[in-house]
């Protein structure tokens, strides 16, 4: 652990919860505590849970509430260190060497030796920073979001380990870049594969599940301006009902919000079975799921 002296970002757990509420993110009971701990212990948070429950949004909201810059690294298969950490600016290096040669030809004394050039072209001037290095080198407060970390291969995960535990990046030609301030790091995972033990051990683990009834209602009320309380209540009840079915993909919070938005736009005041059936395709994305839910809600499937 590096000994970077820094004031804590958050006063207390309540402060985190209220702060998140102010940026319209309604955290469940555990989330605020884990974010608070992440700051105090200077540990990254690994956020896991079904798609569309606000994992990425959590990082964004924390950045917004603490006034920090969000640096995002979207993971994908085939991500490597030249995309995640740093890369040398080859073109610029080549130009530099060319320029040196020209200078040498003009100046017969041969001013610079090769070692000078080498030292020169592997200096910071020729370094292209990628998200991880950028987050480390930033002098202003930043939140680093490593999104969908389960998409990279197990071997690539190792790239992250140094930065996650020691907040530093080693560049062979240049030395080790140590963080000037410790960024708040969030990793999200959809759990398509088991992450390595080494990665998990370095993180605080937070599982975000579908919210319970009351919280989802609050989320709908907070996120959809002008929605009637009564309608919000009905919406979340129906969504809960649909989630209890065995579906391929249960409706997520973002889909609940889409649905609520649609119903408000349609000027619906109260959802009946027929209305629900006709707008099911907003909540559910598989035809078989839609048919199943429609059957459960009563009546034939919509065309």
């Amino acid at each position, binding site marked *: 652990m590096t000994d970077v002296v820094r004031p804590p970002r958050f006063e207390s757990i309540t402060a985190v919860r209220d702060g998140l509420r102010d940026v319209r993110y309604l955290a469940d009971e555990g989330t605020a*505590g*884990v974010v608070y701990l992440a700051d105090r212990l200077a540990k990254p948070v690994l956020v896991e849970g079904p798609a569309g429950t606000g994992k990425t949004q959590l990082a964004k909201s924390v950045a917004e509430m603490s006034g920090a810059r969000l640096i995002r690294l979207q993971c994908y298969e085939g991500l490597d260190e030249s995309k995640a950490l740093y890369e040398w600016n080859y073109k610029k290096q080549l130009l530099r060497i060319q320029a040196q040669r020209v200078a040498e030809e003009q100046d017969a004394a041969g001013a610079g030796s090769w070692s000078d050039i080498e030292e020169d072209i592997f200096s910071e001037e020729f370094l292209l920073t990628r998200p991880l290095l950028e987050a480390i080198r930033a002098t202003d407060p930043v939140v680093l979001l490593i999104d969908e970390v389960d998409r990279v291969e197990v071997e690539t995960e190792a790239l992250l380990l140094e930065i996650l535990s020691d907040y530093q990046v080693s560049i062979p030609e240049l030395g080790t870049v140590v963080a000037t301030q410790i960024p708040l790091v969030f990793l999200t995972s959809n759990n398509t594969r088991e992450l390595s033990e080494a990665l998990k051990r370095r993180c605080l683990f937070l599982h975000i599940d579908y919210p319970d009834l009351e919280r989802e209602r609050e989320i709908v009320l907070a996120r959809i301006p002008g929605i009637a*309380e009564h309608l919000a209540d009905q919406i979340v009840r129906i969504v809960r009902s649909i989630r209890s079915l065995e579906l391929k993909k249960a409706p997520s919070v973002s889909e609940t919000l889409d649905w609520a938005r649609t119903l408000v736009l349609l000027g619906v005041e109260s959802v*009946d079975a027929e209305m629900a059936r006709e707008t099911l395709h907003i909540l559910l994305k598989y035809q078989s799921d839609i048919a199943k839910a429609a059957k459960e809600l009563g009546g034939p499937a919509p065309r």
Partner: protein
Amino acid sequence: MSGARLEEGSGGGLVDVLSGFVGELRAAGLPVSMTEHLDAMEAVGQIPLEDRVAFKYALGSTLVKNAAHWRAFETIFDVYFSPLGFIRVSVDDADGGGDRQLARAAELLDAERRDADAEMSALSAEELLELLYRALLAGDEELLAALARQAVDRFAGMEPGRPVGGTYYLYRTLRHLDLDGVRTGLMAASAAAVGVGTGSQDTEDAALSDLGERLVREEFDARIARLRRLIEAEIRRRLVADRGAQAMAKTLRKPLPEDVDFMHATQDELASLRRAIQPLTRRLAVRLARKRRHGRKGPLDFRNTVRHSLSYGGVPAEPKFRYPRPAKPEIVVIADISGSVAAFARFTLQLVHAISGQFSRVRSFVFIDGIDEVTSFFDGVEDISHAVHRVNTEADVIWVDGHSDYGHALETFWTRWGQQVTPRTSVILLGDARNNYHASQAWVVQELAKRARHLYWLNPEPRSYWDTGDSIVSQYGVFCDGVFECRNLRQLERFVEQLA
């Protein structure tokens, strides 16, 4: 507010409790490393100890790194840090004067509860039920909690030192409460007084259209489930007080979903298995697809190498390789679906078909004493559990009496489908090989092994039971490329992965 306080506290009470807690987590099968234990200690030093929720998540986020283990964690947490006991632990541990207030608060809370409970114990049983009914109707959390305490007090008949599990007391309590009757009553009440139950003014939909009724029913179900949990927690709290946390945690120890034994799974465990298998198949499919693509490199692609050498002035500086195209195996699953091993066969069929994309072809056969092909049940079906249900109800697997007869089933398989097994086929036999003392017909397995590429036998029984009683695994096993013990999802997953 620092880690120092923990060590300076009276004899390091919390540190000891935490060590015991971590030990219990490990005993329950959760992988908790040394560093994670230290992290947890550091974490609890950072949070106000009187905040139980924060305390729980501080431990959870540092010790539990798998969402499937959260349930186990919660149970053990409740045993070790029950709400009232929790305040006491943190008070004992504190040495500052400011925490005296906390102690008083705890006492006050205790006293308040005692008052409420005393009031309630004066009620008759009928009045109590009436009160319960009203609490459920209104969804009054506090009243429900008090009622749960009272119900346990009255009906569970708990005696100190009696070696009975918590489920027994739970059963006794619930029997007196007649929750099914209460539920019917609640539904009727909400049908009569429209909209009362939902606590809002939604009159139109609660005119009990189908949808409205469904929603109201679910609301009541949720409240009753909540009551059940309260009662369970109350019983657990009392048992802990009686026997101590460690002993209690031991009796509550349950296997994690991936360790549940197929053959002895309860209804609840089967449900959790069904939930666990879907993400598992998805993970497995992703992993296998990746392995296929990223595995070894193919042989040198000469043409391509020469073509690329042109950009280096004819020097083959960058060798190019062919894409590997490993042949996908063809799978034949032959599964015993008689009573004892049915659950195992079902999960295996489900798993194999869910990742059928990794095989060139999957054919499934099921048998008891007759044998039937069920491949078509899985074709083009999106919902695999539905197909499995059809297998159980529609497949023609009874020949004489519906008792397992491996010999006859295998013989029939050989005469009807044996010729279709080719050197590209991997055959997987599933069953406990309990043959009811029929003829084994092991020659079929021998012939199959000759024709097929691989022949595996998966047995859901523990290895020590093999070849006891009417089990004849080894008679078949000698001809197989491998006989595997496959008692839980973990073992099944491992087998399927090495198969593809």
